[in-house]
């Protein structure tokens, strides 16, 4: 058994499978930076996944499908943002509602639309840098042979990081979460900024859901996210809402997930159920070690009442 080939495959799989999760987690992180706690990512990702799958099937184009998924995510993000700010909706309830509704809705629509068939997308998603990094052992081909969208995703994460920390708009966004009254007092519009943050987040996890169905798997099935939306919230917090850190933690999570496969291939006779607990236990341990005293934006989850509400 070729240990090098297997290791490359495991790492490559970790990079690919963590990609949708990473996009979702970064989207959540951006929203949380502005003070929005969104537990509806699971439902939103499913909607984006279903939407992009359906569009890709109809149009025959993966790219159009991806964009469609991003639009779905954007739409849901806007709904969340507007309801959470203008309507002072309780964010956790809203998020859980979106998750329940999205999960049930996509399952319902899928059954209605496709009955008892399981359509599959024809694959053939390009790998632009295939072979370029073969000179670097194990990790080289794992990175180099990835599909083009994986690179796009990482660029998006870097862009998100740059946006948050190096642009004025990003500063406003962070202020909306750190100190909304402060932002307002210098002339910023907290509501508008938060809705904008929700929209950006929506684009991120919209792409995440779309990529899961169209890039990673090539089909959609009810419940295909398997809890990725909730994991995204966890990873966003673990990464302290910083896109780059979140991306790296997500990658580590993906590697841990593939760990049990690797062990099984190597013939280690450990029960797969116990190994499957590893990534989740890892997150908890990570939080316990790194999460103590972490300052989440003080205004996280709280609706903003405007300066006038300060009595």
């Amino acid at each position: 058994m070729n240990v090098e080939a297997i290791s490359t495959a495991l790492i490559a799989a970790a990079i690919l499978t963590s990609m949708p999760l990473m996009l979702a987690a970064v989207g959540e992180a951006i929203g949380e930076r502005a003070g929005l706690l969104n537990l509806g990512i699971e439902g939103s990702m499913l909607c984006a996944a279903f939407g992009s799958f359906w569009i890709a099937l109809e149009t025959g184009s993966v790219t159009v499908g991806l964009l469609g998924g991003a639009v779905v995510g954007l739409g849901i993000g806007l709904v969340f943002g507007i309801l959470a700010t203008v309507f002072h909706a309780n964010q956790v309830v809203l998020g859980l509602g979106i998750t329940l509704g999205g999960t049930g809705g996509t399952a319902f629509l899928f059954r209605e639309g496709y009955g008892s068939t399981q359509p599959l997308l024809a694959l053939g998603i390009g790998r632009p840098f295939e072979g370029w990094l073969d000179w670097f052992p194990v990790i080289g081909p794992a990175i180099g042979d990835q599909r083009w969208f994986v690179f796009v995703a990482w660029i998006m994460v870097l862009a998100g990081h740059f946006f948050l920390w190096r642009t004025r708009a990003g500063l406003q966004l962070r202020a909306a979460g750190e100190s909304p009254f402060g932002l307002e007092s210098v002339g910023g519009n907290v509501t508008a900024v938060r809705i904008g943050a929700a929209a950006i987040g929506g684009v991120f996890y919209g792409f995440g859901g779309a990529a899961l169905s169209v890039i990673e798997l090539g089909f959609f099935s009810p419940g295909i996210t398997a809890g990725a939306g909730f994991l995204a919230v966890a990873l966003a917090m673990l990464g302290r809402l910083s896109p780059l850190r979140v991306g790296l933690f997500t990658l580590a999570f993906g590697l841990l997930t593939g760990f049990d496969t690797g062990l099984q291939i190597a013939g280690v006779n450990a029960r797969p159920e116990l190994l499957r607990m590893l990534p989740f236990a890892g997150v908890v341990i990570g939080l316990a070690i790194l999460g103590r005293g972490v300052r989440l934006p003080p205004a996280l989850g709280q609706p903003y009442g405007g300066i006038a509400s300060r009595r």
Partner: protein
Amino acid sequence: MVDACARQSRLDEDVFMKAHLFRPGRRSSWFHALVLLFLAAPTGPVLAEETAVDRVAIVTPASRTNQGWDQQGVDNLVEVGEALDIEIEVVEDAGYDDITPILNDLASDGTDLIVCHASGYQSVCPEFAQAMGIAVVVVENPAAVTDGLVADIETQAQEAAYLAGVVAGLETRSGTVAVVVSGEPPTWNFMTVGFAEGLHSVNPDATLVYQVIGEAAYDDAPNAKRVTESVIAAGADIVFGMGDGASFGMIQAINEHNLDRETEDQVWFIDVIGDKSGSDAGQYLLTSVLFDYRGAYTELIQQLKDGGFGEVHTMSLENEGVLLLDFASFADPGTLGTVEEVRAQIVNGEIAVSAIGDADGVRARLEELFPR
């Protein structure tokens, strides 16, 4: 017959193979059903004992969409119902919560027989039968069998899986074969062992990679795809996949791998339970371990009518309850002959296939056959 074939195009070969139905004795079980019908019809009104069976229901935990366990049971029962002129009611996606309300609902609509199509229903259905006096059929629970109330279907799929193992052993080019499962329920476990024994019988030096995706990961396609990609990287060129919905993940991994690859480098798939050959998913389907419930269903409906209901019905190679699907056109023609011989040997008892249903037993047996 095969020589004439070889001169034709691949497409024709495919059609030819299918037309000649390499399904040993397929027609005969069908024939059996019709014969039974013929015999039953005139004697029906004469027997004072006969119970009318007008409505039969089937309850499945997941949806037909998975084209696996749930679909096969439903499709087979529907066919039998059409042949015997019985109304069939399908309740899918019942899950593993308490299904008693569903069973009660069916009972109140005058259902005569309920097929509880999941090993997870092994306790709740016999209890319901005892309480309500309505006949039920369970799977993999021979201890629950009760005269007139509870019948059991045993899928001795390890025999057909043995044949699949023989096919894999003969068709593998790389010498590494993978078994990927979405859980370790008895149905999958029986097949894993049978497959391993079949593989071992023709190719004892092969490497067998056994991968469990998760605990009840029947719909976990993403992880199924990831795991399949890993076993392909480990060198497997034939994947025996048991997954229900998760199988699509495995198939997509294989479809992707095979893009722009020559036949020698391709990875092939052996499926279980259903027949995906006609769909997108069937492109690289080498064969499948088919479950054909029609014979069992026909038999027990007849017993319900005439008396004698409440037995263990074993689906085996002999009664064509389990069988191998036609081979794909890219399979080696010589394999057909070998498989036919092995099949005969199993049926007449020369070869005995182990029946191991628990997960620990599976691992022990795999370790014996293919020590690491």
